[in-house]
């Protein structure tokens, strides 16, 4: 069990090469399930590989269990890793695969057997022990890979997109399996994925990374409801948050955001915050599920409004996605109840509670901090 701390960790290929991980600070508590989330190429895998000891750390300090491990080889860091491709040794049976790492560590044969059979029974691999990986299904291979990490009983588990090669149904099962094992073992786990659903469902905390930097760290719902910038706002949530540029204006009723196609009161921000933004350009955002056709649905709450031309209506059964073009090149998506009585090219107006609005700095993309967003469904 261990705390993992990344202190200004940087990875640069060559003295003048690209910086793929840029001064990353992450503190992972003992027993925490930390998810590194981001699009491909954001540096999350490289970060994980540096933690694993598979990649040199260019600068910064990495400690595991209060020990600085920059100079410690992978095998001595007391970690185990589950790979995207599972990395099962094709020439060894399942049992040998499970035991391979232990043998090296000079465990007594009885101890090796005990751990292997225990892991196998937990993961339902007992009948498969003598098979070669090539004779296993994808899900079974995944479980062997997991088992191989488990038998080691390491301080830290590392997962590198372990579910991305599985089909949807299996992915859900395995996800549950991993959560279960995390609960059972209570070990520190670091999990890399580009899938926000995995991140939201599995992580104790999520670390969203973008272009080699940490964009935001926080509990899944915190990150969802309080995105630190436009990148996080769009990356988390499906469909992504709707964004459009607008100006902050002041009026008799208070401050508001306004553009040719939208108009919204800004109720979550103090006048002091907004005062400095008056007549300045900002990025305005609303999540798809906060858009409504009917103003009445919002009740007494102050409502914002957006206007646009219908591009497409996508009925999904339980709900319907409505795509509108608010400005040339800017599309918004609304997640609406089943029946949406509009047709393509019609101009429609959609409403949202003012408390659901986000504003971001137009140039840096950083969120303008306001009063905490209240979860409307609570």
């Amino acid at each position, binding site marked *: 069990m261990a705390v993992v701390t990344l202190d*200004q960790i940087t990875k*640069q290929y*060559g*003295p003048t090469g690209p910086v793929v991980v840029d001064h990353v600070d992450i503190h992972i508590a003992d027993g925490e399930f930390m998810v590194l989330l981001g699009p491909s190429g954001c540096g999350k895998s490289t970060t994980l590989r540096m933690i694993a*000891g*598979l*990649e*040199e*750390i*260019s*600068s*910064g*300090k990495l400690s595991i269990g209060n020990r600085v491990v*920059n*100079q*410690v*080889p*992978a*095998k001595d860091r007391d970690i185990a890793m589950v790979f995207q*491709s599972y990395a*099962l040794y*094709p020439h060894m049976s399942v049992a040998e695969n499970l035991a391979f790492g232990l043998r090296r560590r000079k465990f007594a044969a009885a101890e090796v057997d005990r751990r292997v059979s225990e892991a196998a029974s937990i993961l339902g691999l007992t009948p498969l022990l003598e098979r070669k*990986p*090539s004779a296993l299904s994808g899900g079974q291979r995944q479980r062997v890979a997991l088992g191989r990490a488990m038998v080691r009983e390491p301080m830290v588990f590392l997962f590198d997109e372990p579910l991305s090669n599985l089909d949807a149904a299996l992915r859900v099962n395995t996800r549950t399996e991993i959560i279960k094992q995390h609960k059972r073992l209570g070990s520190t786990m670091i999990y890399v994925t580009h899938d926000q659903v995995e991140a939201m469902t599995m992580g104790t905390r999520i670390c969203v990374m973008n272009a080699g930097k940490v964009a935001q760290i926080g509990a899944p719902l915190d990150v969802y409801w309080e995105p630190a910038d436009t990148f996080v706002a769009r990356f988390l949530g499906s469909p992504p948050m709707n964004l459009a540029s607008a100006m902050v204006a002041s009026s008799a009723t208070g401050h508001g955001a306004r553009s040719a196609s939208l108009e919204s009161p800004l109720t979550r921000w103090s006048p002091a915050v907004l005062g400095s933004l008056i007549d300045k350009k900002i990025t305005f955002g609303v999540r798809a599920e906060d858009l409504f056709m009917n103003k009445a649905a919002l009740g007494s709450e102050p409502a914002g409004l957006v206007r646009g031309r219908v591009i497409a209506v996508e009925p999904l059964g339980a709900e319907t996605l409505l795509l509108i073009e608010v400005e040339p090149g800017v599309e918004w998506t609304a997640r609406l109840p089943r029946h949406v009585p509009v047709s393509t090219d019609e101009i429609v107006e959609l409403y949202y509670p003012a408390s659901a609005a986000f504003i971001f700095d137009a140039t840096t993309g950083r969120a303008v901090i306001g009063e905490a967003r209240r979860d409307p469904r609570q």
Partner: protein
Amino acid sequence: MTTTSMSSDASGGAANASSLADPRRASWWVLAIFLFPALAVYVGLTAYPAFRTFYDSFFTIEGLDATFVGLDNYRALMSDETFWVSVRNTFIWSFVAPVLDVATGLLLALALYAGVPFARFLRVAWFTPVLLSYVVVAILWTWIYNYDWGVVNLVLRALGLDALVTSWLGNPNTALAALIVTHAWKWAGFNMVVCLAAIHSLPSEVLEASELDNCGWGAKLRYVIVPMLRPTLLNLYILAFIGKMKIFDLVWIMTQGGPLWATETVSTYVYKRAFNWNTFDLGYPSAIASVWFVVVCGAVIILNRLLATRERLEY
């Protein structure tokens, strides 16, 4: 704060740093252990002799005396008629013969893949010639081409085609072709095995899909199989090409370059000049070899440009 060397040089970094660094890097001594034996063999028994050959090409060597002659050997080479004949013959070998080898191999592989009866037996039978040494192949085929009792002429006579009966290896018009056929006989089986392996690793859906499209076998071969096997076929072609550029044993044993230099290849000419020329001059043959090395390298690099794909293996 830089804790570990950033150097991309394999030898950089302390020994312990290597084990925690990128697994695609290794410390110099690990690389040395892996590469040294091969490089030692290479340097001692290939590079050094080759370099010596290049060095010798600037000398005329009579017995133990070497006289520096600069580029004279190379100049003489340009006007050496036999050399140019041998170049022409070698190019015919190199461009024609591999096509024959690979095409035959591909067709045989397709036949096996299509599930002809006795496939296992046929696979071994068709591969048998690959197992025979050039000495043996040469003996056998000299007998087969024998004018009086060779099977080729016997068959022709039996078919009443006496007009076609000829001394296959003695006739300058047929000798080169006869050798190429012999060579194809020996190597088609090898190409078959490689093609068969490649076809087996093709996704069968594609072949089935083309079956549904109801295209003829010619079209399928042309539009589906050959394009998908392209890397394999090109690789085989290049290997065969290199082999043919060096072709020696078979020619030397069967015709020694005759009749009238009709089957002379660069390699036989080099050997002839080095060992069969009533002189000890190694300079001139070395010059031929050096020129040829450059020609072959160039040709292979050009051909190699054609294949660059290298997909990863899936488990």
